[in-house]
């Protein structure tokens, strides 16, 4: 992520250190190849949002927030609420991030998280219809990075689902057609829990939850979003190429890790 992260000349020394360690099955911070850093999920971090969650994967620190409003449905989906996902790689989070409108990386981040939720129909958008063709709930999901130490997609995907699962609709008065944003009633209808898991390829190895240092030397990234029933609902290959066999491996890793994260999420929201 960020301009200079992509520009960085592969640091030969760091690269050989990381790959040599991996050859012995180890990582710089002592994790195994398929181990996540400590996952911390804290819902309810911003009082004015309909739902929020802050997620730490080690030192990676992101927040997701949901705001609901009333708007027009798309003309081809008159009975469905609308999901809009935005992401901001704010310069607060890394010296490599810059101020300004969302760059390519922020846009990709938002779109990958968006697709996982959309394709899996995680939100029951039909329940978000107020008047068909005229008034539906708009779900604005915003992702914000506070500290970037790698694996932003997975962190944001997890924060997004935590924010959505804890979100409650503000009270809508159909007579006055106004929202009472002080009073929240029903929970946002969430049917499934799609979570993105990214696999980083370093030499011959596939590792999960890469740090920023590992991302700087990785040869490729492949993100798969899985659901609890074992389906895949989104994939996105980043940076360098993959072989078909590596993709096959990734199916297993992302399913297994997705289930672990779903368990952690369920525990955090209990």
């Amino acid at each position, binding site marked *: 992520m960020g301009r200079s992260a992509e520009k960085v000349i592969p640091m030969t020394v760091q690269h050989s250190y990381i790959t040599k360690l991996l050859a012995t099955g180890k990582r710089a911070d002592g994790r195994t190849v398929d181990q996540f850093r400590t996952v911390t999920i804290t819902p309810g971090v911003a009082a004015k949002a309909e739902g929020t969650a802050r997620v730490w994967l080690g030192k990676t620190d992101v927040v997701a927030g949901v705001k609901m409003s009333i708007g027009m449905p798309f003309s081809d989906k008159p009975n469905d609420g609308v999901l809009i996902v935005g992401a901001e790689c704010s310069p607060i989070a890394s010296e490599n991030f810059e101020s300004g409108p969302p760059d390519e990386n922020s*846009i990709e981040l938002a779109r990958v998280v968006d697709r996982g939720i*959309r394709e899996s129909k995680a939100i029951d958008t039909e329940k978000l219809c107020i008047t068909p063709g005229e008034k539906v709930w708009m779900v604005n999901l915003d992702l914000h990075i506070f500290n970037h130490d790698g694996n932003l997609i997975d962190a944001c995907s997890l924060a997004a689902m935590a924010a959505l699962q804890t979100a409650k609709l503000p009270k809508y008065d159909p007579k006055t057609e106004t929202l009472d944003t002080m009073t929240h009633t029903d929970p946002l209808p969430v049917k499934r829990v799609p979570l993105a898991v990214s696999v980083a390829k370093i030499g011959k190895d596939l590792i999960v939850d890469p740090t920023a240092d590992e991302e700087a030397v990785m040869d490729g990234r492949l993100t798969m979003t899985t659901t609890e029933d074992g389906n*895949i*609902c989104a994939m*996105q290959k980043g940076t360098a190429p993959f072989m078909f066999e590596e*993709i096959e491996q990734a199916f297993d890793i992302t399913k297994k890790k997705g289930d672990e994260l779903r368990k952690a999420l369920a525990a955090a929201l209990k």
Partner: protein
Amino acid sequence: MTKLKRKDNRKADVIRPISIQVGVIPNANGSAMVSIGRTTAIAAVYGPRELHPRRLQIANKGVLRTIYSMLPFSVDERIRPGPSRRSSEICKVTRQALEPALYLEEFPKATIDVYINILQADAGTRTAGINAASAALADAGIPMRDLVGSMAAGKIGDDIVLDLEGKEEEETDCDLPVAYMPNSKKITLLQFDGDMPPADVKKVVKLAIKGCEIMYEKQKEALRDKWVGAQKK
């Protein structure tokens, strides 16, 4: 399983009519126009040339820049010119699909600029654009490890099918574009929108790779045609 019936009567593994022509933009260093059914992409390559502003130059390698844009009248509902979130993402994945084919380390401080314009869009514009860009890079005489073929596959009902056209794409909820370098068997583009078990996804990837190989051969043919044509003159 009922018998597959596609909108345009194609079999599951058949691509729409393909036409590839290289050298279509005289001002460019290389160019190509790729039509697949009613989808047409035109790509032009400018460079390698010095990268400005200089602060973007990289000391020991060149930069590949890809700009994908749809003409306003290429789709049913007119789109405003200028970048969108969708086109930004396509620019990025297109660049990453092509980079592995290039020896960028041979062009320090330089840029190779690839412009892709979609003239008509009936599904599969990003893959058409990658095919056009790959052929245009070769047409520009830029040394390449391999050409990059690109094609999407999907699923209609229970059937895994190649190269969805517009109506099919609207009705399915599975779209999986791939770009592929046959020599090294490297997958350089892989995206997926859908909701399927991994086993099915694997099958779709495999069929898409088959489509990439076809597009790869078509690119070679078009480059050969231009060469032969040039020889004849």
